[in-house]
């Protein structure tokens, strides 16, 4: 136990002392994001992405910000601009880190933004793609809570559409929630989802 604490302290200490430009930059970007300075956060991520050719996270976050901002848009031209930019940065992230489940489910989220905008135009081609993307992510990372949650939510959407029981997917959400509790992540790694899982599980309990 004592050894463990020492180890943690050591690692912690090391990470503080060796705080690089990259870490400072990322922290600043997250701080801006947290303060709702979304454009500035996105632009800083973009600058870091252009400077750090070995890191997939900055490009991933540029894409994430654009995807999240495109839900609810009414103008297709603007939607297309944002999602095209997101796609460009996702491709960059993919080229740095191949078969990364976080990038794969972000790709599915990007597709969902198109489907949400016009289901008739984009649903036919993209919903099949999404099903395949979640399947692929699950095979790569069966214990990644975001993957488990994302797939469960996607499956629930279609089950609900067909008036089928979502119970089996509620179990997946519960499992995701457990996985969230024990998850240990590297710094700056995407860690969203636990709250969302709790919300969905609450709805599950109500039905």
């Amino acid at each position: 136990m004592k050894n463990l604490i020492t180890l943690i302290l050591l690692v912690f200490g090391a990470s503080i002392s060796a705080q690089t430009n990259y870490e400072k930059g990322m922290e600043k970007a997250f701080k801006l994001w947290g303060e709702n300075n979304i454009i500035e956060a996105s632009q800083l991520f973009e600058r870091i992405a252009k400077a750090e050719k070995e890191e997939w996270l900055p490009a991933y976050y540029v894409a994430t910000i654009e995807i999240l901002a495109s839900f609810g848009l009414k103008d297709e031209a603007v939607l297309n601009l944002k999602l095209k930019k997101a796609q460009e940065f996702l491709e960059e992230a993919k080229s740095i880190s191949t078969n990364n489940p976080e990038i794969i489910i972000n790709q599915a989220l990007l597709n969902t933004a198109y489907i949400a905008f016009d289901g008739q135009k984009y649903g036919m081609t993209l919903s099949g793609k999404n099903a395949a993307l979640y399947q692929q992510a699950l095979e790569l990372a069966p214990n990644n809570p975001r993957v488990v949650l994302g797939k469960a939510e996607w499956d629930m959407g279609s089950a609900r559409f067909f008036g089928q029981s979502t119970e089996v997917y509620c179990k997946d959400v519960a499992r995701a929630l457990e996985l969230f509790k024990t998850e240990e992540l590297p710094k700056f790694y995407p860690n969203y989802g636990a709250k969302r899982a709790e919300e969905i599980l609450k709805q599950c309990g109500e039905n």
Partner: protein
Amino acid sequence: MKSIFLLSLLFLSIFSFSQKRVIYGKVIDNKGIPIEGANVYLEGTYDGTSSDIEGKFNFTTSEVGVKTLVVSFISFETHSQTAEVTSFQNLIVKLREDVNTLDAVVINAGSFEAGDNAKVTALKPLDVVTTASALGDVFGAFQTLPGTSTNEEDGRLFVRGGDADETQIFIDGVRVFNPFIPTAKNIPTRGRFSPFLFKGMTFSTGGYSAEYGQALSSVLTLNTIDQPDQEKTEVQLMTVGVGAGNTQIWGKNSFSINASYVNLAPYQWAFPDKNEWIKPYEGTSGEMVYRYKPNDDSLLKLYSSFNYTALELIQEDINTPNGFHFGLQNRNLYFNGSYKERLGNGWSIFGGIGYANDTSDINLEDDEVDDTENSAHFKIRLNKRFSNRFKLNFGTEYFMTDFDEDFRESLGEDFNLGFTNNLFGAYAEADIFFSKKLATKVGVRVENSALLNQFTMSPRASVAYKSGKNTQFSLAYGSFFQNPKNEYLKFNTSFKAEKATHFIANYQFVKDRQIFRVEGYYKKYDDLLKYDSQFVASTTNFTNNGNGYAKGVDVFWRDGKNIKNLDYWVSYSFLDTQRDYKNYPTQARPNFASKHNASLVGKYWINDWKTQIGMTYNFASGRTYTNPNAGGFLNQQTKNYNSVSLNAAYLISQQKILYFSVNNVLGTKNVYGYNYKNQPEANGIYNHQAIVPSADQFFFVGFFWTISDDKKNNQLNNL
């Protein structure tokens, strides 16, 4: 105290070593209006900022020496300039609009695009399978767009006063030589291809790109899917037959195969029509696609299909008391291969090969006709993107057709007819964007026909101007050549190519799932083929002295926004056309061209029932026919054509769909024209017979089941 002083001195010196430089300036657009929120930074560093509401930026850096300053903003071209860091002061950065965006002007006079990538989508891929009157046929769906004339008994596309042979079909840029399943007279044909193969379609009703030739009126280009999403097996059970398909994916490869068998015998037994069927329609078809995508920059597609069709029947005919006996067996093999690659530096290359072998054994009463056609198409296309504002597209192609016919009269002679038609074509075309609002496309195409010993040159040009946020105007001009049809070339080859010249003006409004467009056109026909006999034979005299014109207005409105769960469109076409061709004694409006055509298509999704219901209403004003009792030529007009079709798709579960459709649900008795007896009766009157559909209505019920790993995919896109 002393030590603190020393320490601070030390710090000061460090600060002075890493001396900060200020970079500042202003970002504006080409009109001088400040751009807020542009990302301004030194490339390769984190140093940068966003421009403020006045377009101003200001940041510090410790970088020294020669660096690149980058200014980027969404919907503008990224600006970069390289210089000594100290010189980046009081800069004025003028950003150029990115013309490659969704809200930029589109050069589209004359054409309708369908597909995810299209900037303006008049028709979506799903529409082919959910439009009530289309019955899953690509061509059926396009017949609900303006510019087409309803000719229900034919099934092909008649565009702006042109007959069906004036439209050419391309798959992945390669010509399809026999796109339609052959049928008997008066029985509508269908395309040979399953609609779910395609992800994008462009239907051009005039003024199209110099890339396409040998079409006087229209081209329809279909693009197949690049990569399937997942492995699956599909089963189709229909009132007219069965089908099955399977898709496999491994690594960078994928393979899809599907086969279907259609037999109308049970249907004809249950719902007999006006024909006496000896052998009801029977068709077997299979398609395979292999795709190989080694990387993001290149793609190989190999497509092949096989079709076998047989039918035999006796049709009523006023000049044949016992009815006209017609039999047909057709085999069609088609191969289409294409490879494309991005070469870098703005270059990309495309190569395609098409090959078709088509054989028909036809019985006409007691005569027998055997046709064999071998055709091939080779094409190479190069694209060079100099910038977003200037792109060049050029290529060359070669067509070969070898046609051979044996005609055996029951009592009499054997004829052997045939020809070889080789044609060389080359084209070059430039896309020029002057701004986000003004763009033009200019090109030229040359062709050399070995058979006709003729060289032709056709200029093409179009220009588009975006007049407002949602509106634009466009103009197009082009000249088009097409060799005469096989049925004439087999008797005579001393022709010139037929010629058409198009002038088009278009206005378009697009906003939030609403499209309105109106297009006026004038089309001039020259050098049309004429002959002097009732039927074409080896003794017929041909000339190229025919001519004609077509002018009109096409209107289209589509709305998927204003009424929840309802998507509908309305098409109207006004057509004024006359031509003097074939054996016409004078200029007249041909039988296939009705003056007014209109379609109304609606689709309504009922969420509680998990059902989409659809309705199509088609209207066409009367068609011309010649009444020998009245004197004159094409002097009479039939009554108007009306048809209402309904369909419904019920999603039983994610993977099971039940589909139902009825064409002409009201049972309207439509008339396409009249046949007159060759000889008058004793009282001098020629008796007549109406040309009517063989059945007034058509029913279809199908069950579609998909089996895939994730149990999600269905064949809604397949109906």
